């Protein structure tokens, strides 16, 4: 394996959990719901995924358990903010705290156990291609899933009727309601999708990235995913670009350090957030782009009149 291949491989693995979680949150936010509980759903996904794999002996069942864990937590959030019309910001933050605590409780029995790893898939012949072989065709299954997901989410949002309905709900829930779109149901499904993605991203950490369970292992990646959604101005493919950019900055910083090139590592750790602030500034440069890009009803409560 050449140095270049090795670097690209690590960048891809570092970016994948960010990308998966960001895509889920992107769909949720496109429907007009702001779920700040990504970190909490991720960590619960990490622990249920790990537990699922340990108990069944199959990392693939672990992946399913991770998604189920994230969805379970997001359905609680959905009930609070959609059914009870609770404040989304407060509920989301509470969800993160709940997830962090809950995961510690569930995971107590699994501390200190080495996990099962999702193995890389080797495609005959293609993996052996020079340079691009391992990068394109030698990844673990979730990397392929994340790229496919980005394309599918993009097609769904902008090329399907259901996607149009979802965006309509996010942009103007009153009008969508008038037109007969079931606002609450659409949002609930979007929240569930977000939960499944966050759970999957967490599962990627505990099953593929570092196959182990330790408390707090998401270490703020949920917040980076949230920032990424804004950075991408709610566009799925831009989210993919952003995730690889953030992953790339992190990994190149480590390589620079190991080479002995002094780079301010604190600055580079802050880079995702600085990039997000910059993106926000650019987005809000003129009103038209700002209105066009962000879901207008983001964070607003909708109570259908009877």
């Amino acid at each position, binding site marked *: 394996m050449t140095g270049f291949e090795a670097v690209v491989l690590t960048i891809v693995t570092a970016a994948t959990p960010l990308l998966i979680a960001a895509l889920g949150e992107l769909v949720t936010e496109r429907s007009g719901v702001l779920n700040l509980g990504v970190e909490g759903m991720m960590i619960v996904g990490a622990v249920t995924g790990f537990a699922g794999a340990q108990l069944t002996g199959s990392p693939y069942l672990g992946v399913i358990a991770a998604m189920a864990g994230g969805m379970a937590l997001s359905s609680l959030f959905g009930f609070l903010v959609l059914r009870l019309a609770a404040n989304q910001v407060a509920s989301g933050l509470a969800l993160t705290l709940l997830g962090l605590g809950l995961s510690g409780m569930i995971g107590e029995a699994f*501390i200190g156990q080495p996990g099962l790893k999702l193995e890389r898939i080797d495609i005959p012949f293609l993996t052996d291609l020079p340079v691009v072989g391992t990068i394109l065709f030698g990844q673990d299954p979730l990397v392929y899933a994340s790229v496919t997901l980005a394309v599918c989410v993009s097609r769904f949002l902008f090329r399907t009727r259901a996607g149009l309905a979802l965006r309509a709900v996010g942009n103007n829930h009153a009008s969508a309601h008038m037109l007969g779109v079931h606002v609450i149901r659409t949002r609930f499904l979007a929240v569930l999708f977000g939960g499944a993605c966050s759970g999957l991203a967490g599962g990627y950490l505990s099953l593929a*990235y570092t196959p182990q369970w330790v408390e*707090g292992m998401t270490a703020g990646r949920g917040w980076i995913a949230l920032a990424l959604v804004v950075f991408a101005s709610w566009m799925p493919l831009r989210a993919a670009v952003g995730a690889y950019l953030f992953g790339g900055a*992190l990994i190149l910083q*480590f390589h620079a350090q190991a080479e002995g090139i002094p780079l301010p590592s604190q600055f580079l750790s802050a880079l995702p957030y600085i990039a997000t602030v910059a993106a926000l500034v650019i987005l809000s440069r003129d009103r038209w782009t700002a209105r066009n890009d962000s879901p207008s009803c983001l964070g607003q409560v909708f109570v259908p009149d009877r």
Partner: protein
Amino acid sequence: MMRATVLAVFAAMLALPAAQAADPVKAAFVYVGPIGDHGWTYQHDQGRLAVEKAFGDKVETVYIENVAEGPDAERAIERFAREGADIVFTTSFGFMNPTIKVAKRFPDVKFEHATGYKRADNVATYSARFYEGRYVIGQIAAKMSKSGVAGYVASFPIPEVVRGINSFLLGAQSVNPDFKLKIVWVNTWFDPGKEADAAKALIDQGADIMTQHTDSPAPIQIAGERGVHGFGQASDMDAFAPAAHYTAIIDDWSAYYIARVKAVLDGTWESGDVWGGFDADMVVMAPYTDLPEDVAADAAAMVEKIRSGEFHPFTGPIHDQEGKLRIAEGERADEGMLLGMNWYVKGVDDKLPQ
């Protein structure tokens, strides 16, 4: 007479928790992280469990985990003191000032603060000489490495960490004077993903021995995946990479905690400062695995030499990166120099972040 009896009863009621002879000594522990971190806090909690095991129902232990350094810590510590704890262990550097503050208000309660430097009549401090273990693994690294390069996943550029890096390299240089050390700072104590990424970067750049001063088993796990070797940190991490794990530097607080609680039981507790290493069994090496017999035997012998005081990892001549003589021939670093170490020894391939 009547009045005296009433008073006596009243006094007995007040003193109830402590006055009964059969009443256990209450030892409280304040942790900065979750007990499930499999690292720093996990090891402190193992110490607490050892105390329970050693004294049975003569001692009652309580703990609180995930206490943020700051005002929260003061509240947590004060609560234990108020609830009748006889001795409170506060196990993070950032708990130093809160501990001192609470100790002033509760002169009868004994406090023990880990890794700090402020003491009082009822506040003792304790820490462990992890650098002793680092010298031993440095020697093992130099003997086992084929590429002659080790990778070091480092957390924050504080004296504790710099001391470990220096000690590791001094150990390695004692075997192979040209041994190289590559360092990556991850700016966190605990982030398995980042630690793994740093380990991958180091291995990609030629390191075939992985060591770390961060808390998760991720780096050693990556070493295992990539077919190189390494060492565990804080606790025995052999299970995470059975084929890669040579040994680990274990923080073992059990002996200290048992001794201090016993002192409270016996009424002989006094404030003081303990900085123990191999000699106090506060630093212990995990079983040597996957090592040739002679290397393991040499390592064990070195542990004994350090334990007996025959050898000190920081024995001169030691030069810093600029070539300046820091410790003269035959001399040993004094405690002040060790505690405030902010320079690299010669041969470190990194610029110390300031």
